[in-house]
């Protein structure tokens, strides 16, 4: 009787151990998000060297940069859509501004 009890106990412990062993999934957490934003921001600064004289030039440069760096983007200049390659609802965005003829022009780029 005692031996049967021990056997059941051993089997139960073994099943529990195997279950724990199989259900454990090692995870290696690391955060590499944000590098696209960093690259985009460092690239957008380059527009300042080109001294865009009006909003159309600014739109062109912003769209050129966004299309070359990002896979999915929407570019808004002063709140109006300048260019996009997707109709999806993109949540992440980068907002910056340029001063053209003394007026700040806001550029907002949504990215995936």
């Amino acid at each position: 009787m005692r031996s049967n009890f021990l056997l059941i106990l051993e089997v139960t412990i073994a099943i529990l151990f195997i279950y724990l062993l199989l259900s454990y999934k090692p995870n290696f957490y690391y955060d590499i998000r944000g590098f696209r934003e960093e690259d985009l921001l460092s690239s957008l600064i380059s527009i300042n060297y080109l001294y865009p004289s009006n909003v159309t030039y600014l739109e062109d440069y912003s769209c050129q940069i966004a299309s070359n760096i990002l896979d999915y983007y929407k570019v808004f200049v002063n709140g109006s859509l300048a260019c996009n390659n997707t109709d999806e609802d993109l949540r992440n965005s980068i907002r910056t501004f340029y001063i053209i003829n003394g007026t700040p022009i806001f550029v907002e780029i949504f990215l995936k």
Partner: protein
Amino acid sequence: MLIKSVELILVLTICTLIFILSISFVGNSYNSFREELYLLRKFYEGRVLIKSLTESQTFSNKTCNITDNLIYYLSDPSSFYEYMKSLGIRDNVSLEVIDISDGKLLFKIGEKRDNFLEFRRVCYYNGSLYLFSIKV
């Protein structure tokens, strides 16, 4: 006596199974860890390379700034590989510099690989914008 021997065989079988499972589990964990580590190393090598190439000028932290020195480096692939070695980058890296106004390829170093991570930046140099694309 029969029950005892059956019990012994059962315990031995279970112990062997657990042992085999443990070994395969440790092996799988080690392999996935190595894979993750390889990806992570590739990622950081790419980041270090693109940041050190485009932010080499003084006071250009997080700003894309191209120097004449860099263009000189890129014109000679061997000096570029020396530069990569000095940064401790061991993997094959391909670098492309493209003038985005006309799509002209300025420099191309290294070959494109199948599984790669790509880092792109657009930088101003000498009156126009250039796309720096690094594939690691």
